[in-house]
């Protein structure tokens, strides 16, 4: 395209500039023009305010705690921490769970969206929907599989679903109504290749920070479209290498549609 020659040409570039939609050569030409043109600078300032509002179009997602922590360290608000308790990230950093005091309150990965008592049914339903939406965003994979878990705990009122992305090897367990395990014990999530519980792979051990509520537990592990999941109660703080009891919750993905996925 022809380079901008008169001022109208530049005016027409302002919207594209504010949206970052110009070709590199146009953007450079416009940037140079801005240095010498007050009218265009005003125009761009107003347009950039509009485009900045677009940041509020996507759903709000809570940033990972590591972001704030990094900022605080980088600006000197906090000193470098000793590598003690760390919160799992999507890079596959393992969660190090350790007992704290005599009360043995264990560190928890679960991202509890609610720490209020949910008395109202409408609140509970809203919480469930919002948690599933948040879980879907955490996984961020439109092809993720939903695996509903059932079993003895479900009969006592627990509801659990795993959103699993075999594309990203990560997932989220959304769980509600599962009681806190006895002191010194943890719940452990296992991934089951081909849904085979005898092949259970250690995935993540957890307790809840607060009850009641709808909790999400993020995890990273190798996943395929046929991976199932199970939850057992294991000794704390970090669970077991293999399940030592029968699952209280168990589920496998729905079979793929005929004709291939």
């Amino acid at each position, binding site marked *: 395209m022809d380079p901008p020659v008169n001022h109208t040409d530049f005016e027409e570039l302002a*919207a594209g500039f504010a949206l970052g*939609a110009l070709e590199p050569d146009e953007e450079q030409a416009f940037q140079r023009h801005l240095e010498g043109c007050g009218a265009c600078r005003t125009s761009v300032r107003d347009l950039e305010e*509009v485009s900045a509002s677009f*940041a509020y179009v996507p*759903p709000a997602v809570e940033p990972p705690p590591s972001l704030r922590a990094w900022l605080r360290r980088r600006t000197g*608000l906090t000193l470098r921490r000793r590598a003690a308790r760390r919160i799992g990230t999507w890079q596959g950093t393992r969660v190090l769970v350790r007992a704290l005091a005599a009360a043995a309150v264990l560190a928890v990965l679960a991202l509890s969206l609610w720490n209020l008592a949910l008395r109202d049914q409408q609140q509970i339903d809203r919480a469930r929907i919002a948690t599933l939406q948040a879980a879907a965003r955490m996984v961020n994979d439109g092809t993720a599989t939903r695996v509903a878990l059932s079993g003895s705990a479900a009969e006592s009122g627990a509801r659990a679903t795993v959103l699993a992305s075999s594309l990203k090897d990560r997932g989220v367990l959304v769980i509600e109504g599962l009681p806190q395990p006895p002191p010194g014990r943890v719940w452990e999530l296992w991934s089951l290749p081909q849904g085979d519980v005898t092949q259970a792979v250690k995935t993540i051990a957890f307790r809840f920070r607060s009850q009641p509520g709808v909790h999400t537990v993020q995890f990273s592990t190798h996943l395929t479209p046929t991976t199932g999941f199970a939850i057992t109660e294991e000794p704390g703080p970090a669970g077991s290498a293999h399940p030592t009891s029968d699952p209280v919750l168990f589920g496998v993905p729905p079979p793929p549609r005929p004709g291939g996925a």
Partner: protein
Amino acid sequence: MRVRGSRAYRAPQDSHLVALVAEGDATALEALYDRYGEAAWSLALRILADQSLAEAVVREVFLSLWREARRFDPARGTVATYLLSTTHHRAVDMVRREENLRRRHGPEKVLALAPDEPSGLDDEVEVGGLIRSRIRTALAGLPEPQREALMLAYFGGYTQREIASLAGVPLDTVKARMAAGMRRLKDELREAGRQEQFPWTPR
């Protein structure tokens, strides 16, 4: 007298916080992160669809303010605009550089971000909620060709030329659509009252 903790910085205007950051006040920077960190993160995540890349972008944005606050020029725009525009630009740059990111987020996916979809979780956030509903309503009210051009550019990182190619229309048409769309949004948002949009930003 300086009070410790970013909670003490709830009330001040953004411009006051920037001035404090320019003096090396890290708590003031954290207060700006309290205000705009989530929006920056949500935007970067939306554009990049990758947590580690999004985190890298948002870190850089706030770090750039930490380093350059002394040179921040209020005549060029508000700090909210600076933080969110910089996030947007860096995220889009990254999408353009990383070919596989672009392939992951085809135009249909970009357009699938319906601006008027209910989100459920946003209701608790008062200030954010107000901006959120205003921009979404305003975007939803645009003629489809204008809205599509803006969405493809902003969330997909497509250039005007690429959008023209995707839509099968001349480049000038896309430019006109973008300009018209932005003009309408500007008028609508201005009518809604800038003071309500960013209450910490005086005008």
